[in-house]
């Protein structure tokens, strides 16, 4: 084998496509020729390094959250476009208000006071030129999908930090925050998570605080048990000072 034949076969060698005879000849040449020996060493090292370059790589949480919420926003826009198309331009603003309010009322995870006095909102880019009142709280909670509802109380020294952990968990499980209500006593975060992810999500939430009070019942009553067969689960996470 000469140097030009070596170069011709090197990629086949790296790809494991050479037969035994070719491989032997190539290695013999590399052992005898300094230049090709260095090439072979580099080629092997390169193959090994490239093959392992993604070892231990994980998708950063902000990147996980970004595409999921972008997809959800896109889905909401498409849904509202269908509502809009069905109702016509004149009634659009009215339809949006009524439609969204109806959807909100259908979501037991969102308390009535969360949308009292509010009109509808749509994503910032609106729907086909329909302008909605600026400054309205973005709140387009429930879909037509059936929602099940549970709540969690997280006792913590530091509500802001706990809320940060919660956001990471929300991103991890592809959940979305639909509403956040802060009061002097607690911060309530209303989250929507898919039925399949709900149990894992709740386990992660339970691990945030000093201790968590499973199914405490926000209004003194017993909270309903998790229905994992629901397409989506509304979770009210109550972050409260220990």
């Amino acid at each position, binding site marked *: 084998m000469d140097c030009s034949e070596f170069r011709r076969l090197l990629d086949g060698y790296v790809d494991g496509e050479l037969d035994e005879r070719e491989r032997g000849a190539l290695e013999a040449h590399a052992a005898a020729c300094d*230049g090709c020996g*260095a090439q072979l060493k580099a080629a092997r090292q390169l193959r090994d390094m490239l*093959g392992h370059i993604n070892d231990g790589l994980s998708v*950063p949480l902000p990147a996980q959250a*970004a*595409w999921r919420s*972008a997809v*959800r926003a896109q889905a909401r826009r498409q849904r509202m476009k269908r509502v809009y198309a069905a109702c016509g331009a004149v009634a659009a603003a009215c339809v949006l208000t009524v439609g969204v309010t109806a959807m909100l009322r259908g979501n037991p995870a969102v308390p009535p006071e969360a949308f009292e006095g509010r009109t509808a909102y749509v994503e910032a880019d609106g729907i086909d030129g329909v302008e909605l009142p600026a400054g309205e709280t973005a709140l387009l909670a429930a879909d037509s999908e059936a929602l099940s509802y549970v709540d969690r109380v997280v006792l913590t020294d530091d509500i802001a930090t706990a809320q940060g952990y919660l956001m990471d968990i929300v991103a991890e499980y592809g959940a979305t925050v639909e509403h956040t209500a802060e009061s002097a006593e607690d911060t309530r975060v209303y989250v929507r998570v898919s039925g399949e992810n709900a149990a894992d999500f709740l386990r992660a939430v339970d691990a945030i605080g000093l201790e968590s009070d499973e199914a405490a019942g926000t209004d003194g009553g017993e909270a309903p048990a998790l229905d994992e067969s629901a397409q989506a689960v509304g979770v009210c996470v109550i972050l409260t000072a220990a």
Partner: protein
Amino acid sequence: MNEDKLIARAARGDAAAFNELLGAYEKKMYAICLRMSGNHEDAQDCLQETMLRVYRAISGFKRQSSFSTWLYRVAMNTCLDELRKKRNRPSTSLDGLLETGWSPSDEFDTPERHALERERQQEIRRAIAELPEDMRAAVVLRDIEGLPYEEIARVLDINVGTIKSRISRGREKLREKMQAKAELFDMPDV
């Protein structure tokens, strides 16, 4: 739920099904975006754009190719488009594009790894980021993702002969960079 069912639901616009379906491919897609863009910030944008394109296009997915080949194709086209856009924005320097900085989630940031190994990996990542885009795409799919030549040809919509030559030239350039840092890579000086 199996993949075919999720694809069918996602094709009807079900975002929850879509997010579950693509969640399984998220890491692979991100790795492609990261290796093509060379930094985490652009990789995040690229991943999001890829997912949105997939979401918009999934109802037209025809099963002539496997779902993963189709995803590779969308991801790669998105990466190449984003790189093109970036090139037309003159203010960005190449240094700004390179993958730098370490965070806890970064690869190879574990104590048991040697500093030398880390330095080598960093050099290789830099060398990949500096490859011409057509060679980079081919090398990423072949030597990092481990795709066979025929599948790479389908992903990039280019014939196998051209793919082979791009990979060959791309590897050669990477070897040149290694030999330029002979000491780091423990290469004999020739």
